């Protein structure tokens, strides 16, 4: 077995990506996009000044940028071109056509899939849960539709290398942008891709084989693949793969307790031969702990003092909480709601750029409670091309929801609060910021939920432009985003900013107990995660690094084969010393990950009764007795050098002459006996006699 971690990923929106070679099959785990890199591009420039900016960026930027290399970044440093998207950097080094299976664990892990499915020769089988596939599809469609704005703005581009990718352009990029574009080792330029089309998305989802919760999928009769909920998001899962060489479980980002998605089902991952642990989410908390910036609270940005502002960003970037646990998660939500209410009370609007579906659904519920109790009547808008479909879908997949939500199904209530709120028009859903219905209904102050969290795409861009100078308004961001960079185009920024982090994986302190419960025979664990992982004396632990292939010796010592009892009864059993043995018959099948010997459809017409393999050395006296039992008379005659064809004169042979019933000759050498007879029957009888004086099968 071979394992390569292609990318550690980064938080919720950029799950880890790895390649696994199992039983000779190459399996890719997840195919995400790194949206945080999108911030090097400028959002679509504002309608009036936009044209001018683009014109100017064509001619003078090179000079301008050169002059201010070491200056503070500003909005003009960003790349004014149709953005490309950054995928996992080492994935493009693999030939897509060599991948046999792709396993998608979450909607986020699916967003880069069309890049793969549209590549030439890609023929892998893609598995994802039903919910992941559906949500993933909607997110991809949304992405394509949001990106459309760029395409409309910049006009059609010829295929080929865009302007910003040229070396001379890259050279003059400010170092912060350059690092994102090229990577630390300047080798990540190949990871950038032009966005897929709606047709690519369609083709991609068509290729996905969807699975129900814990449904078994059998690949090639050899691998049995099963998804179990990971708790990260609705439909998100961990995988178990069993093959004749052992059972493997793969854990990606998982959450123990969730108040929307089905909980992390770790029981199902117990007792495997190999556990691939690739939840890197605690890396983030580790770094944060080191930086000691665990402050919690909203921060007001002021444009006057740049340095002060930077400090604020750091504070804003502070995580809300590091532990998992639904109650703490709920506190965070409550805090966001309180801040939102405060802003609204002050006459400002609230813009919530959070793209975590579960968080969004809960926020909607909480917010409506807060609004109700505060007796404010503020409209809540959701602006996204797929919001309507997503919200509708959320209410019809009880199978992927947490226990409390399932209880709602059993008592006949809607699974999420938004259904009622939408009916009461407390929440209004619009497909785009420029849709006529929205313009008709628009009221300020208001609370708006809108993608995209990178602040480069979607309605959020327009609304930020509108509110960025209003100090009563509030912007709610996700962590994992470099806020300084993300907000560049919207400076000067007067809005309050609340950046919050939500649980997106297994906490460090839970790793050890988890491993103790799961008891894998061997464990693959990231080297970067500094946490105690000793869980048993006898088990093997392999530490892995990003982009280092790790070979793991075979997990179980022997393959198992099952022989149908009816067939086994037909075997002729021979015993030799301690052992009893029998020659196999039938046909070997690979069925459902198991080797099975079944009685062949066509039993060989002439079943060989002869023993085909002999060992030992024959006792000639005994042979004579055996022969005489069959009515064959003979005598022993020592001949030296009388070999077959005279080829081996140095090999001494003992000869046994048969006189009756007809003449025959048996030449016995050390490792060979030659029976010479003109009569088939006699030859076969002599051969039978040989069988009884030799070991054979």
């Amino acid at each position, binding site marked *: 077995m071979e394992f390569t971690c292609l990318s550690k990923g980064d938080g919720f929106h950029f799950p880890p990506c790895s390649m696994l070679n199992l039983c000779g099959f190459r399996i890719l785990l997840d195919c995400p996009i790194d949206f945080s890199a999108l911030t090097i591009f400028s959002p679509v420039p504002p309608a009036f000044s936009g044209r001018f900016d683009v014109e100017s960026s064509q001619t003078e930027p090179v000079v301008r940028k050169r002059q201010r290399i070491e200056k503070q970044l500003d909005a003009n440093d960003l790349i004014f071109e149709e953005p490309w998207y950054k995928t996992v950097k080492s994935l493009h080094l693999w030939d897509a056509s060599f991948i046999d299976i792709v396993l998608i664990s979450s909607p986020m892990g699916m967003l880069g899939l069309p890049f793969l499915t549209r590549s030439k020769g890609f023929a892998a089988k893609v598995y994802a849960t039903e919910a992941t596939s559906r949500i993933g599809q909607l997110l991809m469609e949304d992405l394509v539709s949001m990106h459309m704005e760029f395409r409309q703005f910049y006009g059609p581009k010829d295929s080929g290398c865009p302007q910003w990718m040229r070396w001379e352009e890259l050279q003059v990029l400010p170092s912060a942008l350059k690092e994102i574009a090229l990577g630390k080792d300047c080798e990540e330029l190949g990871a950038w891709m032009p966005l897929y089309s709606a047709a690519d998305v369609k083709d991609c989802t068509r290729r996905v084989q969807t699975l129900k919760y814990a449904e078994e999928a059998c690949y090639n009769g050899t691998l049995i693949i099963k998804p179990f909920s990971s708790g990260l998001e609705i439909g998100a899962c961990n995988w178990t793969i069993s093959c004749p060489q052992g059972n493997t479980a793969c854990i990606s980002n998982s959450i123990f307790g969730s108040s929307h998605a089905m909980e992390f089902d770790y029981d199902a991952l117990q007792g495997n031969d190999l556990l691939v642990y690739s939840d890197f989410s605690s890396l983030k908390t580790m770094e944060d702990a080191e930086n000691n910036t665990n402050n919690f609270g909203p921060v007001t940005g002021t444009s006057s003092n740049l340095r002060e502002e930077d400090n604020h960003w750091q504070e804003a970037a502070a995580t809300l909480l590091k532990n998992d646990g639904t109650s703490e998660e709920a506190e965070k939500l409550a805090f966001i709601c309180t801040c939102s209410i405060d802003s609204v009370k002050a006459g400002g609007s609230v813009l919530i750029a959070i793209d975590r579906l579960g968080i969004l659904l809960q926020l909607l519920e909480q917010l409506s409670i807060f609004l109700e109790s505060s007796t404010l009547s503020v409209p809540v808008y959701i602006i996204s091309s797929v919001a309507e479909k997503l919200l509708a879908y959320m209410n019809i997949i009880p199978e992927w929801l947490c226990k409390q939500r399932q209880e709602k199904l059993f008592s*006949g209530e809607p699974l999420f609060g938004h259904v009622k709120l939408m009916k009461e028009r407390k929440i209004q859903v619009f497909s785009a910021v420029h849709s006529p219905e929205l313009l008709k209904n628009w009221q300020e102050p208001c609370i708006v939920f809108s993608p995209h969290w990178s602040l480069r795409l979607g309605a959020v861009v327009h609304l930020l432009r509108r509110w960025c100078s209003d100090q009563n308004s509030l912007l709610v961001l996700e962590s994992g985003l470099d806020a300084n960079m993300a907000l560049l185009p919207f400076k000067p920024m007067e809005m309050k900013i609340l950046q919050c982090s939500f649980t997106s994986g297994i906490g460090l302190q839970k790793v050890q107990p988890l491993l103790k419960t799961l008891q894998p025979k061997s464990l693959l664990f990231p080297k970067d995660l500094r946490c105690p992982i000793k869980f048993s004396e006898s088990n093997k632990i392999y530490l892995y690094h990003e982009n280092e292939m790790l070979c793991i010796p075979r997990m179980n010592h022997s393959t198992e084969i099952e022989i149908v009892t009816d067939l086994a009864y037909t075997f002729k059993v021979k015993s030799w010393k301690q052992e009893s043995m029998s020659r196999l018959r039938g046909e070997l099948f690979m069925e459902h990950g198991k080797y099975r010997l079944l009685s062949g459809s066509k039993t060989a017409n002439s079943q060989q009764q002869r023993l*085909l393999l002999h060992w030992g050395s024959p006792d000639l006296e005994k042979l004579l007795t055996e022969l005489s039992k069959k009515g064959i008379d003979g005598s022993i005659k020592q001949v030296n050098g009388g070999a077959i064809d005279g080829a081996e004169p140095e090999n001494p042979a003992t000869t046994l002459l048969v006189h009756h019933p007809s003449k025959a000759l048996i030449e016995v050498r050390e490792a*060979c006996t030659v029976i010479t007879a003109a009569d088939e029957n006699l030859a076969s009888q002599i051969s039978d006699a040989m069988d009884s004086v030799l070991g054979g099968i």
Partner: protein
Amino acid sequence: MPIECLVLGAGQEVGKSCVVVSINGKRIMFDCGMHMGYADSNRYPDFSRISDAGDFNSALSCVIITHFHLDHIGALPYFTQVLGYKGPVYMTYPTKALAPIMLEDYRKNMDRRGEEEQFTSQHIEECMKRVIAVDLKQTVQVDKDLQIRAYYAGHVLGAAMFYAKVGDAAIVYTGDYNTIADRHLGAAQIERLQLDLLITESTYANSVRDSKYNREGEFLKAVHKCVAAGGKVLIPTFALGRAQEICLLLEDYWERMNLKVPIYFSAGLTIQANMYYKMLVNWTSQKVKETYVTHNAFDFKHVQTFDRSLINAPGPCVLFATPGMLSGGYSLEVFMQWAPCEGNLVTLPGYCVVGTIGYKLMSGKPTRINLDKDTQIDVRCQVHQLSFSAHTDAKGIMDLVKFLSPKNAILVHGEKPKMAILKERIESELGIPCFYPANNETVSISSTGHVKAHASDTFIQRCLSPNFKFLKCGVPDKSASGSKCTEGISRLQVVDERVADSILVEQKCKKAKVIHQDELLLMLGEKEHEVKFAYCCPIRIEKSVQTGSKDLSSTDNQHLGLDKRSLLELLSVKLSNKLSEGNIQDFGEHLQIESFHVSVCLKDKCSHRTSNSIENQSELVFFCCNWSVADEKLAWNIISIMECCTLNTT
């Protein structure tokens, strides 16, 4: 180990479905239904047969409920709460959601009829709490050995067929199913499985149903006619299933015909039921599913809640009222009011149990019905019977049995004479042993087992590489009969015997092991001793005039070399004409067919020659042959050809 199947209910009848199957030490109860036709102890399956002591927890591994109909779930609260079964109960999400509604409805009716209460509301609630909901195709590991899985069955929302596997033995219990998609549900779907036993329903064991389409049309026409004339339409149904199906039908029709007549649902119960349907839209048919975003099909636009005051309100309307069959309650109350008016219509969807008003309406055209001693109802309204059925028909059952090809089949949930006919068909047409036990009978069938062994890598590798042998068969000696033979059968037979080179070794106190024969000697610590056969075979030579006999036996080595080759070539031609199997390879010095090795022998005295009497030696040439045991039969075949043939040298 045999599989034992104890039929506690729905054996040669319809009602109180309950089958207990023992497989490899596990015992599973499929369905736990009650019989609508009885009010005594016959109402429930005879649970005492599972365990005399009443210790159901150790007697059963789990209970599986296929769908929410009372004849499949009606006895569950009694079994778990009153009899005290505490083990796991599995059903699909929709069944878990909808079953309490059905049970509660039933309990209330029991109450109303003044029957002794078998279980309380509390019981239902407690019982449902313990139920483990499963998704379709979700593989549930009940315990280490027992695995179950649900497959879509159609019939009603959430109905499932269940697959259960213990060790190597596997069975499927279908529950009720429908192989044809209807207005709101898809058709039953299952994958090919290796089954020892299939337990299938057989409600329509002997009939093939026509399309529903016409009946739907007639129904809609009747309803339209009635409301157009200002009449009221009463549709007595149970809260779940049929109500939604017919309502979908009406909604669609209302939309198409642009009708504005109100459609009422009698109680909050049914409105509530629609709520469930909306959330469970994923379990309905593809067509309904696809539209959920823009409009959830169960968001009925024309449906309003009914109010008692509306019973005698003027104007046309359509009313869905519970319970079905007009067995009492609200639907009966409305019926009493509406029946005397000629313009009204009562539509009875589905089956009505003997003794109900619905049954009386369907079984004749009564003008007056005696409700009890004091009450009489004048029936002047129209009565329409709508025979929708969500069960598969005989063709569907046969298709399923054929598709799954189980080793055995058991029929339940049907009428005895019809089951007998279906059993005959299954046995004669499909060759599958079939049983239809009566209640409380046990059927025992044998199950397949497997011997488990370790397999060596060499064995696996050797088995992965092909080992083709081509056998020519049906090639006759005479060309005349040959033409006949070749018509039907292909002349070339491909044999790929890969496992015959391998050996199963069993040692005492050790797991059996499968190894390749090459590994065997190493394992035994023995040296191979090859056993071969040899024979120096004389063949008659016919010389042409030019070549003298002396040329052959002479010591002129230069000529000999040439002649050796030509002789072998001649032999090769002869053999290839006559030999039906094997592939002749010419190596110049010798010919080889499998392990059979033949070369010209020029020795005066060869040890492999048996006949000493050499007459006409000049006309004979010797071919020395040797072969190994594996090709014994082939070798003697070749030798007999060689002995008979004559080589013509030119």
